[in-house]
């Protein structure tokens, strides 16, 4: 192993493991970094590599450390961590050429593990850069004498040529719907809403820029304050945390509608949970799903890949006016003994309006509106009587505080109520004509059951910070700086740039990341392939790739046949041109010998030179001899002949 190829391999490994640095345990990151630095020093100083027993000890110690850290040696995270360590340790025992090749393969494999965490466009570009580095050092293993420049050129040529072929493969390679075998529990990272809500859970989420889903409306777009994207519905309260609990009935919910439905297409980012998001109230979904009794749309399996579905929703409705009594009982349950002050407040409202539930709701909203409440991302901590603490002491909270305490007050006043979580609002992308929902749009609101009118949505947050509902989070929160970049109000050009980028990302998601067998079949049908089958795909793939490779072969081998045949002719023609300038143009029908003879008679002074050149030319061009020496001599003499107007003489 020479030093330069060691550096190449070092860089390759560094590039493949660098993206993992943030999600590896810190001690593993630190260890990998120091091992790489040590290896770099050894290569630079020319010191011998560490002994095998030392490496073995380190390996065993690391494996033990990982086992303790993760409490297991199986699963994806552990596998990735072990791979990182393996790659850096393998670098420490680079002895034979075969070790180096194994390391190169390992590096390629590790690139894939990075896709567990991100498959965005920057990740793809980074992959290409990494591949260039890996290929360059790979070429170096087999051609140690070639300089960096040509090596880099070979590597990039290979990669650039491979891209069109990859495109063919990507489009035509038959897609199998995974998984092939049981996945470990941690196969998919979970992000976004959870099925519990406690103070602080949503405000934490609102610090994330990540896209939750994107929506394209078919018809008119509902106003922003109507855009409540329904997620998990929370029924059970234990004093601090709201949870979904179990529905007491399996009856399908009923919707009595008075308006026309809104229909739209949702592209949902994976969140590894069952629920799907739809506008209040969802009516129909295009994918197999369950509409729970509380109007929650649930997918049959966790959403662990980006999915698309069409949905239609009723924006004005009467939802479940005939709610069964078991559910009503759930919607009134409260933990015993907690929050006495709030209960007293609710009791006073009930005494004020003994029969009018709607009046109590109004009273509660008015209380929030006028009670000196503040909408903030950083609410103070609450004690055991969390609702009392919030309502009467801290008076600072995020939407989960308002929704939770509102529902508590309603239940205390004897009105069935529940908390609904989801997303509120949207951000419109003009370029792509779709709406983006981010984690920072996560929201919680309340629903109360008012007998004949069914479940009615009330958003106590709107009572405190109406701007949150009308214009988004940034206009409602005093301190903009704590918000993620995307949730603030950036300058116009930046907004535009960001929208363009998101459009690109969306296209990328739809066409590259979301290219499954369904989309593949649809795409190929659109291209004109009738009734797509596996056999047809395989056939097309074979033919397409074969043709493309043949084309490449022709293109690449063309260099082999381009000999410098024409140099001789070019030199001759140039000579004729110069003679023509001097007053002796060659007639089109004239061969070299005739031309030479004519010049000889006109200008005896240069007769010899021209005759010699003509003889040489016809010998080279029409004769059998392909002597390099003769060619060279002819070329030299032809160019050496100096010509002046009127006077031509040999140099």
């Amino acid at each position: 192993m020479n030093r330069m190829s060691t550096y190449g391999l070092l860089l390759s490994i560094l590039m493949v493991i660098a993206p993992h640095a943030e999600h590896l345990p810190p001690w593993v990151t630190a260890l990998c970094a120091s091992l790489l630095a040590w290896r770099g020093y050894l290569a630079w100083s020319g010191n011998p590599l560490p002994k095998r027993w030392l490496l073995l000890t380190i390996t065993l110690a690391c494996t033990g450390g990982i086992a303790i850290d993760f409490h297991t040696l199986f699963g994806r995270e552990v596998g990735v961590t072990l791979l990182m360590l393996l790659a850096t340790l393998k670098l420490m025992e680079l002895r034979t050429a075969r070790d180096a090749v194994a390391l190169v393969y390992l590096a390629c494999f590790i690139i894939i593990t990075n896709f567990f965490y991100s498959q965005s466009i920057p990740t793809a570009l980074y992959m290409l850069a990494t591949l260039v580095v890996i290929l360059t050092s790979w070429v170096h293993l087999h051609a140690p004498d070639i300089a960096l420049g040509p090596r880099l050129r070979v590597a990039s040529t290979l990669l650039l040529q491979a891209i069109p072929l990859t495109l063919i493969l990507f489009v035509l390679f038959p897609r199998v719907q995974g998984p092939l075998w049981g996945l470990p529990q941690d196969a998919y990272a979970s992000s976004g809403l959870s099925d519990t809500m406690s103070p602080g859970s949503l405000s934490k989420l609102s610090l994330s820029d990540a896209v939750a889903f994107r929506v394209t409306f078919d018809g008119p777009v509902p106003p922003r304050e109507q855009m409540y994207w329904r997620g998990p519905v929370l029924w059970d309260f234990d004093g601090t945390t709201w949870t979904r609990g179990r529905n007491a009935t399996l009856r399908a919910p009923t919707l009595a509608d008075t308006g026309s439905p809104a229909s739209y297409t949702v592209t949902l980012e994976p969140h590894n949970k069952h629920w799907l998001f739809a506008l209040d109230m969802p009516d129909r979904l295009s994918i197999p799903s369950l509409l729970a009794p509380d109007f929650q749309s649930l997918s049959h399996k966790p959403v662990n890949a980006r999915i698309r579905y069409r949905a239609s929703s009723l924006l004005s409705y009467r939802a479940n006016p005939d709610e069964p009594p078991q559910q009503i009982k759930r919607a009134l349950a409260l933990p015993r003994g907690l929050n006495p002050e709030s209960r007293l407040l609710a009791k006073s409202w009930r005494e004020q309006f003994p029969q009018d539930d709607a009046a109590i709701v109004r009273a509660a909203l008015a209380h929030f509106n006028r009670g000196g409440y503040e909408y903030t991302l950083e609410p103070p901590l609450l004690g055991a009587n969390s609702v009392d603490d919030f309502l009467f002491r801290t008076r600072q909270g995020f939407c989960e505080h308002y929704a939770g305490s509102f529902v508590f007050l309603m239940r205390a006043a004897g009105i069935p109520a529940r908390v609904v979580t989801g997303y509120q609002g949207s951000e419109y992308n003009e370029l792509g004509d779709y709406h983006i929902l981010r984690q920072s749009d996560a929201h919680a609101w309340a629903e109360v059951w008012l007998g004949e009118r069914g479940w009615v949505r009330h958003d106590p947050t709107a009572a405190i910070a109406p701007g949150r509902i009308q214009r988004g989070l940034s206009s409602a929160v005093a301190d903009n700086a704590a918000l993620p970049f995307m949730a603030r109000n950036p300058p116009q050009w930046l907004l535009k740039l960001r929208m363009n980028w998101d459009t690109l990302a969306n296209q990328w998601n739809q066409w590259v990341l979301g290219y499954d067998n369904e989309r593949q079949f649809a795409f190929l049908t659109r291209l004109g392939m009738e009734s797509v089958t596996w056999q047809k795909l395989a056939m097309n793939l074979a033919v397409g790739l074969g043709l493309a490779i043949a084309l490449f072969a022709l293109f690449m081998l063309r260099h082999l046949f381009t000999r410098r045949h024409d140099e001789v002719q070019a030199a001759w023609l140039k000579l004729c041109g110069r003679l023509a300038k001097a007053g002796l143009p060659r007639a089109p029908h004239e061969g070299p010998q005739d031309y030479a003879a004519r010049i000889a008679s006109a200008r005896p002074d240069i007769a010899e030179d021209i005759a010699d050149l003509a003889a040489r030319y016809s010998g080279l061009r029409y004769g059998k001899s392909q002597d390099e020496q003769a060619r060279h001599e002819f070329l030299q003499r032809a160019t050496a002949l100096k010509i002046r107007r009127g006077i031509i003489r040999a140099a």
Partner: protein
Amino acid sequence: MLAALRQRFNTWLFRPRVEHGAILLTQRRIFILPTRQGLALGFVLVLMLLGDINYNLSLGYVLTFLLAMVAVLSMLHAFRNLAHLEVRAGRAEPVFCGGTAHFILHFHNPGTLARHQLCLRHAGGTTTGFDVPAGEDREVALPLPATRRGWLQAGRLTLYTEFPLGLFHAWSYLHFDTRCLVYPRPLSDAPLPPGNSPDGAGKRTVAGDDDFSGLRNYVPGDALPRIAWKAYAREQGLQVKQFSTQLGEELWLDLADAPDADIENRLARMTRWVLDAEAQGLRYGLRLPDGELPANNGFAHRDACLGRIALFGVIETK
């Protein structure tokens, strides 16, 4: 039966015949197969593909396909690295047995692309690596051990390359009619035979059997015909006649004069004689049972003599 078919197939495919002149490596002559590393990469790619399917990694598909296509293209690159290369066999300078013969091959790259990492291998195991820049010529010396006197055939050489990624082994067979003459290894210590010039214009006198130069006392083991019987008759005791040879300008190196038992050793001794005679600036002739070379001097003569010695008794097969 099967072996015969295989033989015929190989004959048809690999054209194992001896050629002369220049060889142009056309596609008909270039073979290509994946190396062990190539197969290993295939295995890694299958693993990666399974991972992509299992975890539904679109970008993983892209990476897997990219690597697979890079591998396929590396096959084309390996092929191109050999294709349309021109090879001519050059001269191989004679060597002494036990030395290393250098077969010279001339490579011409007529194209506009450099050929990297070409390797020339002999079945015996010697491998020589070289590059041929675009439009240039390279002279490559393939060293082969000379183990036997006579003609050393280069035999079938393999020109191969695994550039750029070592995934594919592209090769071509070169079987030129080039051969190298191997002289016997000269004995290290072998005095020249006494001069036996017919004109007697000697310069040195060494023990020989041409002229009577005196008598000495008998030592057991002396040849009986050399005993001076007349002196014995004169009661002078057992004496042996001594003769001397005048070392002439023309030294005849005769195989019959080499005292060794083994023919190879005798030829080795003659080789030493030729070298020494040349070194001493003598005129020398060579006499072998199958003919003689008249006395002469100079490197050409020396080489002619060595050649005759090297090829003594060698049946020419071509």
